Each structure stands twice: as structure tokens, then as C-alpha cells.
């Protein structure tokens, strides 16, 4: 049963509001859905998403657009698919990226299933990304707004779902999105965007992990050879490439080179030691039929992308960069591009020398 209806995932922010507006203008029958993830801030605290304020904003936008609005509960899914694995990764000394998993398992996973069950064929979001082609031939591509492009976070969605996704902001710049919102008097046109991970409180990772009864206990900073250089505040609070501050240190700046969760150690050293020419990745999600031999790889969201050779070794993806890259971080995602096209990506397992 194809109805042509589109569910718009609405966070209460300006991007998803404009996405809903554009769909309506294109003549689609829209249904606004706000995902309740059960992570609303404490009373008086700063709301990140799905707090009463966000839900109310989404509701007001839908009312203006005269489309139905629903709040759906995903708190159980968030815990099972995102938060639990997130904590496990941290305990292993890795730096996970929960937004990638959320897009795969929740927004374009359970939410897509839920709206499909309602007889709604498509799902739209306010992501800055683009879908090219239709149906089974759909591909994921970068948005026109390069600075805001969110394809890094979207690379892990299942390929077969691409044909059911709509990104109405694909060809818009952020400024244009705000202009459209203002022009139409959307009540969220001047809202600030939240960039933080929704379930991490303002007090930070340490507070979050402690609230989940995870030990964040101080340990030793060591150099590559294992010599003890000082004390750290807990491995979960460090990530590769981060500056490490040692009391009384007067030499060259030190950086986190690695984390040994088992021995509760943070390995630190000079910036040059952060450089590596390659990586291996597993849990690879491919969004095209065949991987070309050369690609551009992004090793974290803020990374500019670096030219590389790519090849599969069984299920493991090997990436060899033309130039060594800084702070390749196990647990983060590597995402491969061919021009504007997203080829796919995987979870960085280790750096290769």
C-alpha cells in the first residue's frame, strides 16, 4: 500500500521545521513525528532534545503547517541500541560516535519501521545530505552546504532504506534555511542548534558515566615505552589526539596516543607519534555496488578528508593514505567518498604502520 505520505522526524529545531515546510510546499502529505528519547534535561536544566520545550516547538510548527504531529517513544531503543553499546565502547577505551548508530538503528531503523507500519512510505529529516536516484538505485551524496554536511553521520544507514529517505534540505545553505523559516514565520527560525550528544548531560562524559555506575578512576599516564609520566583522571575522559596536560611538564606538548583500558593507562607522546599512514576498519556498510580503488576518507566528522587507496581483506577494510594522518582513533568511523558520493564506511579497528 503506497500512500505517498511522508513522516518528518521533527526535533523542534529549525532544520526539521523547514524540511516539513518544504515537503508540504511540494504537495506531500506530511506527518510530523517527534522522537521521545527519554533524555530530557532535569527541570531548569538546558534541554538538548525531546524536552517539553522541543516537543512544544515541533507541535507549533506542525500546527502552522496543518499537519498531524505525534510524539513517539524511543527511550527503550535508545538504551538498547545506543547507550549500552556506547558505554561498552568507552569501557574498552574506545571513542564511540553514537549519532551514527542512532541514524542506523533508530531514525532510519525503528522509526522507519514504525512509520511504515502506519502506512507511510517515506521518512524525511532536516539533515544536510542528499539522496540521488530513486528506489533501489538510490545513493547517498553530500549536501550543497559543505560546512554542515552530515553524511559522515549517515553513512551507516542500511542501503535498502535509502530509497525511502527524503532530505529536503539537500540543496540549501544553512542561511537559506533560516531565511525560509523567517519568511514563513516559523516559530523556531532563530533557535540555536544543539551539537552535543543528546544523552550526555552538560556536566560531561565523566558525570554521565558515573551516573551509570561506571568507574572513572584515575590512573597513570605512560610514554610509549611504559615509563610512568603522571596521573590521569580516568581513561574514559581521554580520546586520541587530545592534548594531555601534565603538572610540571616543560617539554614539547604531549598528546594522547592511545588508551589501555585494561591497565587503566593513557599512553602519551609527541605530536609526530600521532601520525599514521593507514587504518583497518570492520563492520563496514557499503552504499554502492563496488568500491573503487581510490577514495577520499574522513576519519572523524571534523576531518577534511584525505586521499587514500582502499581494499577489502575479507570483511576488513584497509585504508592506505597518500599522506600520514593525525590521530586515527579506534572506535571512530572512517567514511569513504568518491567526489560527492558516499561509498560507505566502517568502524576503525586499528592504525596501520
Amino acid at each position, binding site marked *: 500500500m503506497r500512500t505517498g505520505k511522508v513522516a518528518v522526524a521533527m526535533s523542534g529545531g529549525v532544520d526539521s521545521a523547514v524540511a516539513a515546510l518544504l515537503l508540504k510546499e511540494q504537495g506531500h502529505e506530511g506527518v510530523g513525528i517527534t522522537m*521521545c528519547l527519554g533524555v530530557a534535561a532535569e527541570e531548569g536544566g538546558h534541554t538538548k532534545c525531546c524536552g517539553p520545550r522541543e516537543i512544544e516547538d515541533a507541535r507549533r510548527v506542525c500546527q502552522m503547517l496543518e499537519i498531524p504531529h505525534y510524539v513517539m517513544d524511543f527511550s527503550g531503543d535508545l538504551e538498547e541500541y545506543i547507550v549500552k553499546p556506547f558505554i561498552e565502547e568507552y569501557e574498552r577505551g574506545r571513542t564511540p560516535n553514537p549519532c551514527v548508530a542512532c541514524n542506523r538503528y533508530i531514525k532510519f531503523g525503528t522509526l522507519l519501521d514504525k512509520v511504515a507500519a502506519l502506512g507511510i512510505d517515506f521518512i524525511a529529516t532536516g539533515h544536510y545530505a542528499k539522496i540521488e536516484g530513486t528506489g533501489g538505485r538510490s545513493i547517498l551524496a553530500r549536501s550543497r552546504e559543505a560546512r554542515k554536511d552530515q553524511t559522515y553521520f549517515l553513512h551507516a544507514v542500511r542501503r535498502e532504506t535509502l530509497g525511502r529517505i527524503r532530505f529536503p534540505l539537500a540543496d540549501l545553505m544553512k542561511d537559506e534555511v533560516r531565511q525560509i523559516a523567517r519568511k514563513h514565520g516559523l516559530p523556531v527560525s532563530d533557535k540555536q542548534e544543539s551539537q552535543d550528544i543528546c544523552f550526555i548531560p552538560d556536566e560531561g562524559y565523566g558525570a554521565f558515566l558515573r551516573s551509570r555506575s561506571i568507574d572513572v578512576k584515575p590512573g597513570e599516564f605512560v610514554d610509549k615505552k611504559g615509563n610512568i609520566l603522571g596521573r590521569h583522571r580516568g581513561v574514559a575522559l581521554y580520546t586520541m589526539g587530545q592534548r594531555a596536560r601534565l603538572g610540571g611538564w616543560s617539554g614539547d606538548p604531549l598528546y594522547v596516543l592511545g588508551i589501555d583500558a585494561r591497565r587503566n593507562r593513557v599512553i602519551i607522546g609527541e605530536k609526530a607519534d600521532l601520525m599514521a599512514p593507514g587504518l583497518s576498519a570492520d563492520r563496514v556498510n557499503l552504499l554502492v555496488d563496488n568500491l573503487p580503488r581510490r577514495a577520499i576518507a574522513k576519519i572523524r566528522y571534523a576531518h577534511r578528508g584525505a586521499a587514500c587507496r582502499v581494499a577489502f581483506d575479507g570483511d576488513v577494510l584497509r585504508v592506505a593514505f597518500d599522506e600520514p594522518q593525525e590521530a586515527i582513533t579506534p572506535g571512530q568511523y572512517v567514511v569513504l567518498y568518491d567526489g560527492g558520493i558516499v561509498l560507505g564506511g566502517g568502524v576503525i579497528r586499528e592504525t596501520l604502520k
Partner: protein
Amino acid sequence: MKRIYLDHAATTPTDPEVVDAMIPYFHDRFGNPSSLHSFGREGKVAVETARRKVAAFLGAEPEEVVFTSGGTESNNMALRGVARALRDRGHHVVASSVEHHAVIEPCRDLAEEGCEITWLPVDAHGLVDPADVARAVTNRTILVSVMHGNNEIGTIQPIAEISRLVHGKGVYLHTDAVQTFGHVPFTVDEIGVDLLSLSAHKLYGPKGVGALYVRKGTRIAPLLRGGGQEGGRRASTENVPAIVGLGKAVDLAREKLAGEVAELTHLRDRFMEGLRQRVDGIRINGHPVHRLPGNVSVSFDGVEAEPLLLTLDLMGIACSGGSACSSTAVEASHVLTAIGLEPGMARGTLRFSLGRATTREDIDRVLEVLPPVVKRLRSAARKGHEERKP
């Protein structure tokens, strides 16, 4: 798209006759009933006329009716007011485990202030055993609160029997009659209560007005202090138009009650029978006989209420689920838990509540569209479950 409203237990449309009766009290007769002048007297007459109507309908005296802002305030006033007035006598309240939150939450507050609360269990139909009530009452007990008709599953409690068993033990009996007032025939003497909460908007009256019946001689402290309105029991300038609306709603209920009970019971039974025949894997909740004429509570195995509700809403059919997600996680309904429904079934529960405007065609339409929707959602749920296995 013709919309079908089957959520009368949440609220009812205000009857146009009620609206007409209210209108003059917004402009022509806007006086404050406490004022001495002719404008004030008009307001006073209106409020007292409505009070007589409500009292007569309940089989009570006018001075036993205190107007409030609605069912929630009436419940709060009954519990907190009695607890405060009888502080010197005891600190024990007995309540059923299927009460509305407007009873549960004040009880929790009382508990924090040192009052002991005994929560009574219910059987699989949601009935309280009057013998349990009698056993729970001690010489420290000041109040027993058992709701009359349950808002979720429709079960009507044996209040009269409870009254007989606790009568003479020196405790007050309160009942939350928000769902039954004007929907099933009773008087306060027949059911033997000292306090009774009611609301107008469940009875085709306006929102924001209700009443607490307080039997003569019942000690109760006011929640709101100020200008001494309502005989000093509830300060605040009377909401005259709304009170007039409540009076008119009672007039209409008096006319229609008998016919409506018969008609809704017939439609309800037709609906339940249709569901049983057309959808497998369901359970109809609540008591088969002692139940609200318009209530149908049904649990579907293997499907969540949320997508069901949304699908029906997109088809223009309005009903309600057992839970609501606003900003915190969904909790299973305490009522469905209390009747022993396992969590999966509880999450798949819908409440249809029929009302004055409900027709046989409405019911037949729901019976026609619901079975395929349930089937589709069940298969989607199974498929989703398999796909997400890691």
C-alpha cells in the same frame, strides 16, 4: 473525512444547549456573586440555582455541594482537606490501587507528610473486595477512597457494599465519580458516600468546573483560602459561566440518562462482540457487567498501542491508549498492571469510550478498519523484531 470520536472518557463536546446557557454570564450577567448590587445578585442566583440542580441530581442538599475547578481539585480537596481536618484523629488512608492519578498523587504527598496509605488490590476484573476494605480500616484510619467508575477499564466498584462495611467505623468514604456522574444512575445515599468528586466536562459541560459533594457534618479543611466563597470551603471568585454550564449539563443528563444507558450499553456490547469475532489474540478488560456503559478497553497481543492509535488517528478515528509520552518515558498503566495484565498486553491496550453522538455506523466503521490494521501492525512488529536481531 468523517471523524469518529470515541474518547468521551477523556472529554466530551460541550452541548450547544450548555453553551447557550453559559453565554449570558460572560457579558450581560457578569456580576461577582459576592457583590451586593443587582449585578452581583444575578451571579449569586445563577450559582445557587446550579448548586440546587447538582444537589438534587445527587440526592443531596445544596449546601453539601462545593464547586471546584474540576475532578482533580475535588479529589485533592477530599484527600488533603480531610487529612488536615482530622490530623488530631489519625494518619491512615485506604485507597484502591486503580485510582486516578488525581487521587494517587495527593496520597503520595500525604505519605511523605507521615500519613500511612494502604493500597487495596483488585481482582482480574478490576474489582475491589469490600472485605479487604473492612480489614484495612483500623482505629487510626480517617478516610477510605475508592473510585466509582474506572476511567481506563470501566469497572464500577461496589461502593454501596463498601459503605455498609465501613459505616460506623468512624471513617469517611470518598469516591471519585468523575466517570459515573450523569452516566450511571445513583444518589449519594444509595452508594453511601461522605465525599464525592465530579466534573462537568465528562458530561457535555465545560472544562474547568466540577464539584465536591461533602456530606453534612464531614470535617474538611479548605485548600484555597481567601474571600470565603463556597461557605469558606473554597475561596476564589466563582466561575459563574462554567457553574451555570454544569447546572445545564445536569439538566440534560437528568432527561437523557435512562435512555442513554440503554443505548450505549447496547452499542458497547455490539462493539465488544464484534471485536471478539473479528480479531483474535485480544482481551477485553474490566468487569463484564459492572462497567461504564460507554467503555471498551481492549488489549491486543503482539501489537503496541502507539502505532494503532496513530493509524486510527490518520483515519479520523479518535480513541486512547493506556499511557502517554510527553517528555519522559512511557510507563505501563498502573490500572492494567493491577488487574494482572502482562506488560506486553498492557502496552497494546486501547480504550474506546462511546458517547451521546456515537452511532451504530461509527462502531461498524471501526470494526471494519481495525482488524486489517491490527493484522498489518502485528506482521510489521514480527518482521521488525527479526530484522533487528543483532
